[in-house]
């Protein structure tokens, strides 16, 4: 244990595990310096495609996107080199198919451009190329000039299904031929204890997309530790009340399988003296952490605030591999990180509120959405620097290992979870029995 951890310069505000640190509470994580080669290596990225994105359950949307029979959307999964159709079938279930016509392999559903995602409602899917039609259940229903074919087995030529399941309204797919776990087994108790959280009430969405010049894990790293906040986001409070050198201490960390969570605690922003807020926050009663008051939600699930932090601020759940749910008072944020190469990814962000009932409530949501973007842009702005410098460190500067502190335990855990999944894949490939 380092001296700094034994004798903190300032007393810890929040209690820590009996081991003394969050990291040592999970001894399998170790405390040594870490390699971030997994974020700069094209070869490792190719392994991630197979080991993680073609084996893990991936969240591709919410049930609200397919509200009725025939509602569908497409999802481009570059990382798995595939496109999916997600659709609500006649029986009410949500199904997923590879977005490929069984006749000569054209992309089946697209609108203006084949590479762009689309959505809508239909009674069947019709291929633009030769007019083959498929039902909402994927069955092949119509073949143009069927008699011209040779022994055509229509029953065997339905859309190729993808495993699809729903948890708490989040639609997950699994590209594995035989998923190793059910969705609930995969999510595990830390996540499924959020069962009953009223995600379904928060249907007013502000959606964002960005193409970032960084490995997908580096952006996730930026959002799973708050150690960077005083440095990068010094403007989070007005300059008059900034405390130079002041750090940030999280209230609770927890890991479960490949998944992670962190809670923040402390005085709610608006209960502090007025000078801690910007004028626009006071005028709109909303800001950095969202509206000051949100409609009541009733009893909340046991999985929320698992550290029983009081006063509680935010729960930030990171579901392996690429989804993050940040639960605030009465609303939530959803992030997804979709790799497009070893050093680029597509970011999706969504602020989800209970629908505004008045103009003032709508304005509160707008403020939260605008403030979110300002600070997310600072995080994103760092990434090009991190990516290029890391690549340089590995290729030319001889720097391969970097220290990671106790407030960054989730960064350490995330990269270890990725490495573990890749290791299992390698063992499976080599014929050795997986752990």
């Amino acid at each position, binding site marked *: 244990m380092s001296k700094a951890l034994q004798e903190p310069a300032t007393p810890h505000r929040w209690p820590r595990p009996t081991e003394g640190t969050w990291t040592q509470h999970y001894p399998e994580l170790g405390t040594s310096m870490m390699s971030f080669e997994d974020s700069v290596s094209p070869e490792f990225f190719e392994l991630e495609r197979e080991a993680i994105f073609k084996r893990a359950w991936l969240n591709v949307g919410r049930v609200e996107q397919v509200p009725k029979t025939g509602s569908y959307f497409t999802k481009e999964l570059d990382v798995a080199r595939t496109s999916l159709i997600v659709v609500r079938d006649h029986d009410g279930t949500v199904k997923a198919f590879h977005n490929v016509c069984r006749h000569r392999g054209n992309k089946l559903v697209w609108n203006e451009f084949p590479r762009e995602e689309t959505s809508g409602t239909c009674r069947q899917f019709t291929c633009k190329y030769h007019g083959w039609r498929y039902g909402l259940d994927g069955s092949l229903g119509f073949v143009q000039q069927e008699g011209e074919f040779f022994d055509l087995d229509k029953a065997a030529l339905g859309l190729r299904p993808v495993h699809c399941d729903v948890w708490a309204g989040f639609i997950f797919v699994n590209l594995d031929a035989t998923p190793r776990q059910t969705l609930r087994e995969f999510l595990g108790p830390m996540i499924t204890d959020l069962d009953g959280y009223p995600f379904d009430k928060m249907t*007013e*969405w*502000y*959606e*964002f*997309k*960005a*193409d*970032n*010049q960084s490995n997908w894990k580096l952006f996730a790293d930026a959002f799973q530790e708050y150690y960077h906040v005083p440095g*990068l986001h010094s*403007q989070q409070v*007005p300059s008059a009340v900034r405390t130079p050198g002041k750090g940030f201490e999280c209230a609770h960390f927890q890991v479960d399988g490949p998944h992670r969570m962190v809670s923040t605690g402390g005085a709610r922003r608006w209960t502090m003296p007025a000078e801690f807020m*910007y*004028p*626009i926050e006071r*005028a*709109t009663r909303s800001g950095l952490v969202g509206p000051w008051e949100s409609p009541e939600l009733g009893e909340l699930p046991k999985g929320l605030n698992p550290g029983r932090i009081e006063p509680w601020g935010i729960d930030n759940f990171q579901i392996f591999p690429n989804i993050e749910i940040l639960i605030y008072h009465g609303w939530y944020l959803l992030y997804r990180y979709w790799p497009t190469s070893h050093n680029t990814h597509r*970011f999706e*962000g969504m602020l989800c509120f209970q*629908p*505004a*009932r*008045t*103009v*003032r409530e*709508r*304005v509160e*949501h*707008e*403020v939260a*959405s*605008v*403030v979110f*973007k*300002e*600070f*997310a*842009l*600072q995080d*994103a*702005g*760092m*990434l*090009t*620097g991190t990516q290029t410098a890391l690549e340089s460190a590995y290729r030319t500067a001889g720097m391969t290992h970097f220290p990671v502190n106790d407030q960054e335990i989730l960064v350490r855990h995330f990269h270890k979870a990725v490495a573990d999944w890749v290791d299992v894949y390698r063992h499976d490939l080599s014929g050795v029995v997986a752990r």
Partner: protein
Amino acid sequence: MTTTLLPPAFADLERFAHDWCLKTESERYARRLASPMQELIDFYDACFPRIEDALAYCDKFPLEELPEDAIHLLHLMYSLIMVAMAVEIFQQPKPVDSADAELARVSEPWP
């Protein structure tokens, strides 16, 4: 002849309406980045003192039944929120240290 966009009670803000009554966040953000800081400050100094009146005016109507001039006023207030980030927080149009990062809002509620 110019068209009046705002309710009569907000005639003092009409001079900003044609530039800043913008329907989407993307338009408002682009306008902010393209505006000299002094213009942002002038807009902020004129609009911020009226935000309470503006919200009270719009709040007289159901959210889904706002008259057109009230929608314009609401969009002007959205622009004020957008501009406040530059004036109150960053003292420049672009967020400090955001480098070349972009983040596009691709869907939002109406109005």
